[in-house]
């Protein structure tokens, strides 16, 4: 039964790529044609590779533990690369480079905050998660608390976070694919969504992990190549690079400093708190600790991931300033006001073309595409795991057997995939980095306080956890709604809007903790 279904899915995928290719070939212009041809070649190679991996993994994914956690057989080095791959998402690669291109060092402030969150993950949650959990972070909570309400709460927050994260990835994917294949945003989102569903439903966590590993290596290699070529242009002299960037940017030497984020101290503090603690509540990151064999492997994998992410962000810094120096003012890539064709989020791809020609641009585009595919697959599996193990168990009140859990997980992955396509279509034009931060803020005020107190405080009760875990994100939602008005009206800079939206975290997260503690004392 499985083989014909797989073949059918493969045909659907290949025909989807075929459609993209023919849409492209209708374009004119020899230079563009050459560039797009190389892009398509890389795309097809990566798509074929990921599909092969998913079919290989699908043969092994006969149990829920194999499908959701790769049988906890991933090594620490592999897991470190996969975690790093999760962080080298399209949001980080395209969004942060675009942010640096738009406003200078403000973009790097986010990068530093994301990196600083990893020691918190390592010191507080990585080992306890591996020791106490199996499929989702709710397993840790249910060691102390009543199962049903906690699983419903954890499942709901996970699905919300995963949905926001998915939207961010889908928006990035839509922009990227529509530019590269010359097709509309809508068909691009649908194409990526279909591939994502095929990949996640078949291969599960093992496939997602291996694609993340390959992608992380390619992403680091590609970024290193662009950064090196940029530095070659400036004779490996950073001062010349900064000088060229400052002379090209309308803000001049102000791009060397933090500006947007420093306007409102409370909002900036909130952003910091949100990002610092949010990583420790992101479901797809927490899931990674279930794929390794023991606590030591979990610990070492975080170290590898931190080093790789640090290296990646350092290269993004050069790519960001390199794009200001080389792309602004060049009519091939940007208009008169400095906005890049296709959006500022495409800064690294335009820069790859500027310094390495069409081959490098095609390679980077395909890597960015593989990034999106790998990250959304991991997200889908995290969501599917939580849906099967938390929501279904919590709502039905009974434990699932292996076959039923596997079936529900695969169905949930498919449903979430369709939801991601619909949300991606609805959120066209949103800032990718902002959407990631929104998901992180909710994770910081919902999952992280619950997880922290469940691990380190014996006095936590179910009632306190449910009230605190619900009220914290609610406050975040209120503040984010306020920020959303700014965005809809188009007032303020993107960093200001981001800060306002994240302002809820500084109130939401401590309120959640206080409520958890206060109600527990009364209980």
């Amino acid at each position: 039964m499985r083989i014909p279904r797989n073949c059918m899915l493969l045909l659907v995928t290949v025909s989807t790529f075929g459609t993209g290719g023919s849409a492209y070939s209708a374009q004119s212009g020899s230079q563009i044609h050459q560039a797009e041809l190389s892009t398509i070649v890389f795309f097809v190679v990566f798509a074929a590779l990921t599909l092969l991996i998913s079919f290989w993994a699908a043969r092994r994914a006969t149990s829920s533990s194999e499908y959701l956690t790769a049988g906890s057989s991933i090594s620490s080095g592999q897991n470190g690369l996969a975690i790093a791959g999760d962080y080298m998402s399209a949001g980080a690669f395209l969004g942060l480079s675009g942010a640096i291109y738009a406003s200078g060092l403000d973009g790097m402030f986010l990068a530093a905050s994301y990196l600083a969150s990893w020691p918190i993950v390592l010191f507080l949650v990585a080992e306890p998660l591996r020791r106490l959990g199996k499929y989702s972070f709710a397993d840790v909570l249910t060691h102390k608390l009543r199962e049903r309400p906690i699983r419903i709460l954890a499942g709901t927050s996970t699905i919300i976070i995963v949905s926001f994260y998915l939207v961010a990835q889908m928006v990035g994917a839509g922009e990227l694919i529509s530019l590269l294949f010359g097709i509309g945003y809508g068909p691009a989102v649908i194409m990526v969504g279909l591939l994502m569903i095929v990949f996640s439903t078949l291969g599960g966590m093992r496939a997602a992990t291996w694609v993340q590993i390959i992608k992380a290596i390619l992403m680091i290699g590609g970024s290193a190549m662009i950064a090196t070529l940029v530095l070659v242009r400036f004779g490996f002299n950073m001062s010349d690079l900064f000088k060229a960037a400052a002379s090209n940017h309308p803000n001049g030497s102000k791009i060397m400093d933090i500006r947007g984020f420093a306007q409102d101290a409370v909002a900036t503090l909130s952003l910091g708190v949100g990002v610092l603690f949010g990583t420790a509540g992101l479901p797809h990151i927490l899931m990674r600790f279930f794929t390794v064999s023991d606590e030591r492997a979990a610990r070492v994998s975080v170290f590898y991931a931190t080093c790789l992410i640090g290296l990646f962000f350092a290269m993004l810094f050069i790519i960001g300033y390199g794009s200001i120096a080389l792309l602004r003012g060049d009519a091939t890539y940007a208009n008169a006001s400095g906005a890049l064709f296709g959006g500022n989020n495409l800064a690294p791809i335009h820069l790859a073309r500027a310094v390495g020609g069409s081959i490098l641009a095609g390679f980077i585009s395909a890597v960015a595409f593989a990034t999106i595919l790998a990250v959304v697959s991991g997200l889908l599996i995290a969501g599917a795991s939580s849906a099967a193990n938390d929501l279904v168990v919590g709502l039905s009140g009974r434990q699932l057997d292996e076959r039923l859990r596997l079936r529900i997980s695969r169905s949930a992955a498919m449903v979430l995939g369709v939801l991601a396509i619909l949300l991606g279509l609805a959120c066209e034009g949103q800032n990718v980095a902002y959407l990631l931060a929104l998901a992180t803020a909710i994770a910081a005020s919902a999952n992280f306080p619950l997880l922290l107190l469940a691990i380190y405080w014996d006095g936590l009760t179910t009632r306190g956890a449910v009230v605190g875990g619900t009220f914290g994100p609610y406050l975040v939602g209120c503040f984010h709604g306020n920020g959303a008005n700014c965005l809809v009206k188009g007032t303020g800079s993107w960093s200001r809007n981001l800060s306002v939206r994240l302002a809820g975290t500084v109130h939401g997260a401590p309120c959640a903790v206080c409520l958890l503690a206060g109600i527990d004392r009364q209980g």
Partner: protein
Amino acid sequence: MQGTSLHKTTEVVLSRAIANRLGTLRFRLVLAMIVAYLAMMAFLIHSARHATQTAVVASDSSPAMVALASCMAFSVILTGLFVLARHGD
């Protein structure tokens, strides 16, 4: 018999001592990371608000860049220190 029991007791005491030491180390490292991050943030906000006094020449790396880079390096170093510490597992 007594020798084996004594050996096991010593092992238990050792593992508890390692766990306590790690708990303290864990707590101190978390505090160090949070303090370092908040210090970086405070510096960035302060330097941005006093931009005229701390204006940088475009060709140099700015104090804000140095602060960000230091915080990023500190994150990696802290993580490495914790992984290198003896965990007893």
